[in-house]
């Protein structure tokens, strides 16, 4: 089961279980139920188009200062959409063991 960083006692649960803070889904680390595969980017082939970042359904990619994209294992499910959408075939799905 995925882990949440902050678990409230019942009296401190935000009213109606609302989420008062935007983007707090990042605290909910769901990468631990990833399939046996993870993406690996070949930065030699990467053209910084951002397709991986756009298509990732779990927002597991983030933009680096140098314009390339970093992958984050805390959220990736190993679905392979990024590898399929990459126009330069710069992303490969590799098994977790590798």
């Amino acid at each position, binding site marked *: *089961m*995925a882990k*949440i960083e902050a*678990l*409230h*006692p*019942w*009296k401190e*649960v935000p*009213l*109606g*279980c*609302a*989420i*008062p803070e*935007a983007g707090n889904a990042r605290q*909910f680390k769901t990468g631990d139920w990833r399939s046996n595969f993870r993406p690996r980017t070949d930065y030699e082939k990467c053209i910084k188009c951002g397709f991986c970042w756009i298509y990732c359904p779990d927002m597991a990619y983030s933009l680096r200062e140098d314009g390339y994209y970093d992958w984050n294992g805390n959220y990736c499910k190993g679905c392979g959409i990024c590898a399929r959408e990459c126009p330069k075939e710069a992303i490969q799905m590799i098994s977790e063991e590798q």
Partner: protein
Amino acid sequence: MSGRKGMEVSIAVAEAVKLANADVIAAYPITPQTHIVEHLSELVADGELKAAFVPVESEHSALSAAMGAAAVGARAYTATASQGLALMHEIMFITSSIRLPLVMTVVNRALSAPINIWNDLSDIMAERDCGWIQLFAINGQEAVDLTLQAFKIAEDPRVLLPVAVNLDGFILSHVIEPVDMPEQEMVDRFLPVFKPTLRLDPDNPVTIGAFGSPDVFIEVKKQIEEALIGSQKVVAEVWKDFEKQFGRTYKPVESYKTKGAETLLVTMGSISETAMTAVDVMREKGQKVGLIHIRLWRPFPFKEFFQAIREAKVLAVVDRALSPGGPGGPVGLEIKSALFDKKEHPYVAEFVAGLGGRDLTVEVFSEMSAKAEKYAKSGKEMRYEMIGVREK
């Protein structure tokens, strides 16, 4: 519109919603609730009530739209009955769980099949566990007063839960009764503008109604349960405030001629007034019979209930719904389980009666009272008896 006037109760309820200055009314017509929302749509169309009237395509949407309106901080209202309430079922739980205050009139009617438009409480009893505050009116004046009170209760920052105001279909909703419509100015003093605690606001974004994993679900439910139980204190405060301003008293459990009564009829809703007449008749004959009626059904007022029945030897509980295949009807169940831990308690005879609009006359109440005493005397275990069933 103020002063005591003869009015159809449905129209009076609509006028109460107008007095409460509802911002959004989302509704779908269904018998016997239709007159309420029909009149409200006229009030909005005529410019007498400055509100958005959302004519939705189903009751599921009616409650969803009202809930959405409450989420942006509007005073929201809807009304329904029977099948319409059943269609709202899933949204009922969501409204209370995400703590959105709104008011809904439920004009109680049997659930199909057979298709039946008449009164009983099977619609709302199927929603017993939806986490709403549930009130029952016994006459037109109460229907108006409870509607006004319901907004104040629901919107209290300590409560923030939806409130269902129940009134019996046809036998209450469609009768013309003398109703004292309060002055707008007094209502405004009693019921200030809704100030939401939690609100969808583009400048301060929040997510309402999100996912809750097993790690948080129980804590959320505990918080809602405590809010619902705690709402009884607020209900009492609102009733005190109402009494001060309008001079009419409301209690969670009302007693009628209980002094010296050995047998008590236990009722809910407008049949209570017929039952009072039955008590009068029985008292004239020297029978020690009284009545209590439960106005606040959820949260259940255990303390007040125990207080109200403390001298009784026999309770004749009148249920207008059945929990099929179970021990009886919901009210009987509630009372028997409440009394289970008491060392001494009255004998509880339970009657399921008046389903699908079968008339409950003065004679039927006298019959139930006599039967209850007979069952108590025999000391036999009695699950429940369905009253008035033709055997031949």
